[in-house]
């Protein structure tokens, strides 16, 4: 055997093993292009804020030294197949310690198995579908889950709006929309309401008039549209043009400034459940909102607030773990108790889903106004 190989091999092996912590690398998988690129932009902003905040203070205390943090953001285009590629790249190429992401549930469901197999902890800011964390040890989220959200909206419709009949129009090709639609249907029926229409469409459809006209025949009190902000205004507009007068309700997928930019007046008088409201009285939230506003010129939406919380959850777990090791970070994350975030207090009781409250927001004159808070 070649002598040089014999000499070099142990050196290379040793060099590869030696833990050199110069910076902590954390991956971010967010839809910065594609149909919900506005959410990806919120994520990007929040991440920039976290990175500058932590590094301005010298970085994260890991064991006996301070380490700077670098977030590596990749675009998953809000497509499950791209999300899988992004997760693979972050884990295998960039060797990140943990991942923030992805955003929509369909994407998180594509990325999560890859991180789970590689033993990389993930905190999803915005994926509310229950399956994302189910049966997985390394997957966490910073938001509530759809069974809770669906119940909040059903309760609101029954108790506050005194609705007796309801209808649902949802995207059947997306995990989030489908999950929350079914929960709303079941909860609303359980509370004594009647579902008079349960209609579907497919992602990228833009004509909803046939479904809405069908619903018009039974004239419901409320219509639940658990879809994303880029479609909802068009659905409501088409509904009004077809003469539907029902009160329109939605979930956290509505929360983006694009909603009123696209919908304008047609959005007034609608309600949706959300993770937080900028009006909420919480000192951490107030500081975050002020900083975000002065830097980016807009009020942060829930996706931005949850991204901020998710990244900070990982940073705190790294400090608690005391070493730059994915497994240790995962264990520290799972043991998180009483983390004070922008969107409320986060405690993981065993699984990856936090116990958190929700708020109902009303759209008034193109603004999101706090209506009520619901705790589990």
């Amino acid at each position: 055997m070649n002598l040089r190989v014999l000499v070099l091999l142990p050196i290379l092996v040793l060099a590869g093993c030696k833990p050199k912590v110069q910076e902590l690398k954390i991956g971010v998988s967010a839809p910065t292009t594609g149909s919900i690129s506005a959410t990806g932009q919120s994520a990007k902003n929040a991440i920039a804020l976290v990175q500058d905040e932590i590094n301005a203070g010298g970085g994260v205390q890991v064991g006996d030294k301070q380490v700077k943090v670098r977030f590596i953001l990749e675009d998953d285009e809000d497509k499950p197949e791209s999300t899988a590629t992004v997760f693979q790249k972050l884990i295998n190429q960039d060797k990140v310690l943990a991942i923030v992401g992805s955003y929509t549930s369909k994407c998180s469901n594509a990325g999560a198995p890859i991180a789970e197999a590689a033993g990389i902890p993930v905190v999803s800011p915005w994926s509310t579908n229950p399956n994302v964390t189910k049966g997985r040890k390394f997957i966490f989220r910073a938001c509530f889950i759809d069974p809770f959200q669906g119940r909040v909206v059903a309760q609101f419709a029954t108790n506050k709006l005194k609705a007796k009949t309801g209808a649902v129009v949802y995207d059947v090709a997306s995990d989030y929309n489908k999950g929350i639609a079914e929960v709303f249907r079941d909860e609303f029926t359980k509370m004594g309401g009647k579902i008079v229409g349960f209609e579907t469409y497919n992602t990228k459809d833009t004509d909803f008039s046939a479904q809405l006209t069908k619903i018009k025949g039974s004239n419901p009190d409320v219509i639940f549209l658990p879809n994303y902000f880029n479609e909802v205004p068009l659905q409501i507009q088409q509904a009004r043009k077809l003469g539907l007068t029902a009160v329109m309700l939605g979930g956290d997928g509505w929360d983006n400034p694009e909603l009123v930019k696209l919908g304008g007046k047609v959005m007034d008088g609608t309600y949706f459940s959300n993770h937080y409201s900028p009006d909420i009285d919480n000192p951490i939230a107030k500081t975050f909102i002020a900083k975000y506003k002065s830097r980016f010129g807009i009020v942060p939406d829930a996706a931005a607030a949850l991204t901020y919380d998710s990244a900070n959850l990982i940073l705190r777990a790294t400090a608690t773990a005391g070493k730059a090791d994915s497994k240790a970070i995962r264990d520290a994350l799972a043991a998180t108790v009483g983390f004070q975030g922008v969107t409320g207090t986060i405690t993981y009781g065993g699984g990856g889903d936090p116990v958190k409250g929700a708020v109902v927001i009303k759209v008034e004159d193109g603004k999101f106004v706090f209506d009520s808070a619901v705790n589990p």
Partner: protein
Amino acid sequence: MDTIIQQLFNAAQLGAVYALIALGYSMVYGIIRLINFAHGDIFMLGGFIGLLLTTRLGWLPFWVLMPLAMLLTALVGVAVERVAYRRLRNAQRMSVVITTLGVGIFLENLVRLTVGPETRQIPARLPSGPVVWLQQHLGAFVTWDKLWIILISLALMAVLWLVVNRTLIGTAMRAVADNKDAVPLMGVNLNLVIAVTFAIGSALAAAGGIFYGQAYSIDPYMGIDLGWKAFIAAVIGGIGSIEGAVLGSFLLAGVEVVTVAYLSSNLKNGIAFGLLILLLLVWPWGIMGRPTLKKV
């Protein structure tokens, strides 16, 4: 309250937009036997040109804005033919088809980079109040813009029919469709006839894009799905036939709406396209299509 009449108007509006796109596919195929897969993206581009004109030159009346957007899109269509397709006219069929796909991807990304990927709507310029007469007499809630979109589309199709069947250039187009090689021998400028065909097809697609952007919404990738649907409508009607493209479009929209209204919105595409496959089994050339005999 019965909603069937309202559903018919929904189908008519959707069908009108499909038809405006399908005509371009059908005419180009009829004349040079080319399936122009970039045509769906020309439709998208027409919508965005309409959006830009409406937001930048909003003081212009709709009756000026719309023809202007159609004219600009027609120029793009002609330019695409001149730059990308003309020199491939005698090349292998496959090369041209790949080029059309490439042009489509280019247009999508051009709009995505210059305007942005967000879903947008063209500010409504047509009156949007309900048509009272229809509401009182038929119990159908139909807004004026929907009615206008259907009527203007039908008018455009009527104009097209007159151009093709009653004018000199239309005669030349039909002649080229019949025999592309013999027509230049008669002193007809083949390039001009083909350019006019692309111009008309693109202008109609632009009208569709503007209507679609007002009634529904537009985004840089909408041309893919809608382009496919319109292409299928053209095939069902018999590709190469103008009447067939219109018939196929209204048929496809009708089947889609009826499936949602009376069967299941979940199965919309499955049932709609299943029926259309059956239809093609009965009429392999499309409803109005002519079987082409291959000379050996």
